């Protein structure tokens, strides 16, 4: 990223611009939604497996395994995004999840299945009218989250991330330079 701040910026950091705030918001919203979605499902993993199976896209056993892994992956990626660790990779995984969800919901809609998406727990078959009413909103929500993920993949540097704190300096300029 081009650094817009003057070289004599007080902390050595460039000043925080609007793009940084967008990045931070993207991190917190995408991370927060993923973490909550995972946490609500992780307490009932067999139910999550049923929800994935209800889409009838993946083979039975594979769908079961995805159902067990998904809430755990969502929670971990959510935490990484909230804390600002491996932001680009986490956002990429989050974005891929959104793409998968959008495909899954669209495909269920197109095939005339009446599903609760199971995004935040629950899932399985519901009344057709309820399902049809929910599909567009679910897809719109996931498109919005996908946009946030894309932003973070393109521009992963955000303020208030623990990346540097945890992994230490990547440049000598980051540490006190008091030799001689």
């Amino acid at each position: 990223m081009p650094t817009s701040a003057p070289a004599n910026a007080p902390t050595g950091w460039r000043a925080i611009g609007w793009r940084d705030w967008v990045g931070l918001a993207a991190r917190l919203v995408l991370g927060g939604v993923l973490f909550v979605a995972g946490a609500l499902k992780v307490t009932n993993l067999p139910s999550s497996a049923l929800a994935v199976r209800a889409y009838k896209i993946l083979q039975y056993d594979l769908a079961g395994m995805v159902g067990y892994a998904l809430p755990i992956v969502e929670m971990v990626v959510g935490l990484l995004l909230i804390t600002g660790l491996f932001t680009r990779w986490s956002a990429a995984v989050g974005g891929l999840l959104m793409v998968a969800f959008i495909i899954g919901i669209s495909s269920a809609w197109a095939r005339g299945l009446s599903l609760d998406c199971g995004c935040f727990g629950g899932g399985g078959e519901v009344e057709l009218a309820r399902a049809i009413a929910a599909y567009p909103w679910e897809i719109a929500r996931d498109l919005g989250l996908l946009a946030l993920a894309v932003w973070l993949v393109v521009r992963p540097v955000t303020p208030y991330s623990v990346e540097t704190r945890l992994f230490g300096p990547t440049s000598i300029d980051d540490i006190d330079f008091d030799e001689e």
Partner: protein
Amino acid sequence: MSKKASARRTPASPPATPVAKETEGDVTEKVSRRELLRAQREAELKAATRKKRLNVGLGIVATVVVVSLVAWAVFTFKDSIGATNAIPPHANGDKSGIIVNPGKAQKNVPLFVIYQDYQCPGCKQFHTVFGTKLREAAEAGKIQLEYRTMNFLDTNLQNDASTRSAVAAACADNVGLYQGYYDALYDNQPAKEGAGFSDELLRVTIPTQLGMTGDKLTGFQKCYDTKATLQFINGTNDAAGRAGITGTPKYMYNGKDITNTLTAEPSSIDPYLGS
């Protein structure tokens, strides 16, 4: 990718003091040596950071994989450990359900299958509308009738009533009272979904209503108490899932799902009850 990302975190400002001091003496040589050292240390730092990030990243990925696999294995196999596996006498050939009218169906009659869960309110509604007609057709041998029982609602409702009731009904097949027990379960299904069935209802009240006494009652209760048919029930549930059933009830006529063609009118099932 990640390397670039972290490199971008580098502050733009140059180190404050050292450069400024280099204004006297053999400047050129000192500066170039210093720069070399600097570049070297910079590279070392970067390599160290990259290694650290890689290790932590791989650690996170490995943890996620292991935790997911353990969770999957625990939930998948916990029920089959140490369980007895009593097959009800009238189980169908692939053990995916129980034949309701064994030995009664005439030759070449349609196969009528009901996928159901005793806690499912829709199943009770269908049972109320079509139960009598189905029972009559099955008794007359016009159809072969099979109930394929699922217990998946336990997962969603977070209780174990689907499993306990299904185990009990399968135990009732041992004493030839499967259909009666099935009917009694729907008659006693609580109005509020998820309220479940009490042990007292399943092991005493319903059997007594059905006229079980003496050895029959003792045998039934032993079957229920030891969950002798649990593996069978988990098997019918799994078979239904593999057959693509993700919701109940599902009424199948010769393998075709006719659930959505049925209405609140009992006669809507007539075309499927054989001739």
